[in-house]
């Protein structure tokens, strides 16, 4: 009788022990691949097989949203339209001014003998999955190694920097968002009389922390923060990609660098398309 109970317990525990051990092994293998800067073929194979299903569901959701979204948005459209017209006029002025500044910069670079800065090539990709877990800020896109996506490539969207590719399969890639707790990117306050340099770190919430500023750094709410082109935790982002806008500055009582919170320029929960920089 006792033997039967023991056998039964063993029969129950063996599979779960085996599966748990397999999980630990797969996790260890994945970490090793990631540490070596290589994509994990096993994880990307699972993603490649299931991505068409998830992509089709996300596409259907987008289609429904585009056809019937007016039902929920309708009452706001008029106000949104007016704001967009105002913004459009402001942006036209800014584009004209920036074209002029770009031409001057090119001329000055040529005079100084500096190499011209080439615009990055971009790969457009659909977002097929966003934040599969409440604790991780990642998304999966519909382009992979076959399309030219490489590990650690910066990812941008209309408004600014989104994050960085940290795992890539043949047809899909996973992107680590700026807001993830393990994300870090060199940041620079764009205002000409500040130019404070720090590191923008995610903490899992909606805001980023601009850390490691100098004690006398001049940062005020409303300042635009762009990538500094200096090293981040997982590699280097090109200089000048918009990270976000300073939302709150709390001076440190002990005289150390101020505590600065940055609102990302991109609304990560509404992303539908992104561009991977090559």
């Amino acid at each position, binding site marked *: 009788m006792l033997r039967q109970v023991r056998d039964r317990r063993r029969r129950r525990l063996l599979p779960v022990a085996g599966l748990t051990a397999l999980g630990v092994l*797969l996790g260890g293998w994945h970490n090793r691949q990631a540490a070596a800067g290589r994509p994990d073929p096993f994880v990307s194979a699972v993603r490649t097989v299931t991505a068409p299903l998830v992509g089709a569901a*996300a596409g259907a959701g987008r289609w429904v949203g585009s056809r019937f979204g007016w039902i929920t948005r309708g009452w706001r459209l008029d106000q949104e339209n007016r704001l967009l017209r105002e913004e459009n006029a402001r942006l036209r002025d800014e584009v004209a001014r920036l074209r002029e500044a770009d031409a001057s910069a090119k001329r000055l670079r040529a005079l100084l003998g500096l190499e011209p800065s080439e615009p990055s090539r971009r790969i457009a990709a659909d977002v097929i999955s966003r934040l599969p877990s409440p*604790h991780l800020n*990642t998304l999966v896109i519909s382009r992979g190694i076959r399309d030219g996506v490489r590990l650690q490539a910066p990812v941008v969207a209309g408004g600014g920097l989104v994050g960085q590719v940290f795992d890539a399969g043949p047809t899909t890639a*996973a992107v680590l968002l700026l807001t993830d707790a393990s994300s870090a990117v060199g940041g620079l306050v764009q205002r000409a009389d500040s130019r404070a340099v720090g590191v923008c770190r995610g903490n*899992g919430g909606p805001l980023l922390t601009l850390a490691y500023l100098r004690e006398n750094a001049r940062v005020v709410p409303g300042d635009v923060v762009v990538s500094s082109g200096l090293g981040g935790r997982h590699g280097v982002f090109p200089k000048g990609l918009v990270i976000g806008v300073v939302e709150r500055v709390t001076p440190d009582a002990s005289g150390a660098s101020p505590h600065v919170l940055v609102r990302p320029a991109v609304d990560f929960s509404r992303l539908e398309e992104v561009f991977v920089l090559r």
Partner: protein
Amino acid sequence: MSRRSQRLVMAGLLLAGFVLQAAFASDVRMGAAQPEPALCVLVLECLYVGPRTGAWLGFGLGLLEAAYAARVVGSFIVTRTLAGFAVGALEDRVFRDSLPFSVIAVAVTTLLVEAAFFVFVPPRDALAWLGRVGGATAYNSALALPLYFIVRRCVRRAAT
């Protein structure tokens, strides 16, 4: 044959739950609260199977979630496998086919899975983590209400 078709239906439902989670969970986020329909489906399915099948279903879900998160792969697989096993192991101890019990099982499993995740991947901000866990637990408990009827209907129909 009925047992085989029941398992196929369970795998299909779990995949459907995961697809919904991967494609839409962030669209229905409320503050820090984000639902995990795949975890709800796993718990509800495991109420109708033993610990072995529960562990296999959990392993499958862990693998899917890990593939999309592409991080903390081992933590996803281990926590989901243990969750499936634990809920499946309740078969000898309690009568599981009831709505209130299902909701409680989903809430408790969500808390335990997130607590295990806390151990494997310690968060930088514990308060924010608590908020997300509370939100996910409340959301999953609410989701368990309609999902209970869907899962029960599909699983029972497949078994007959």
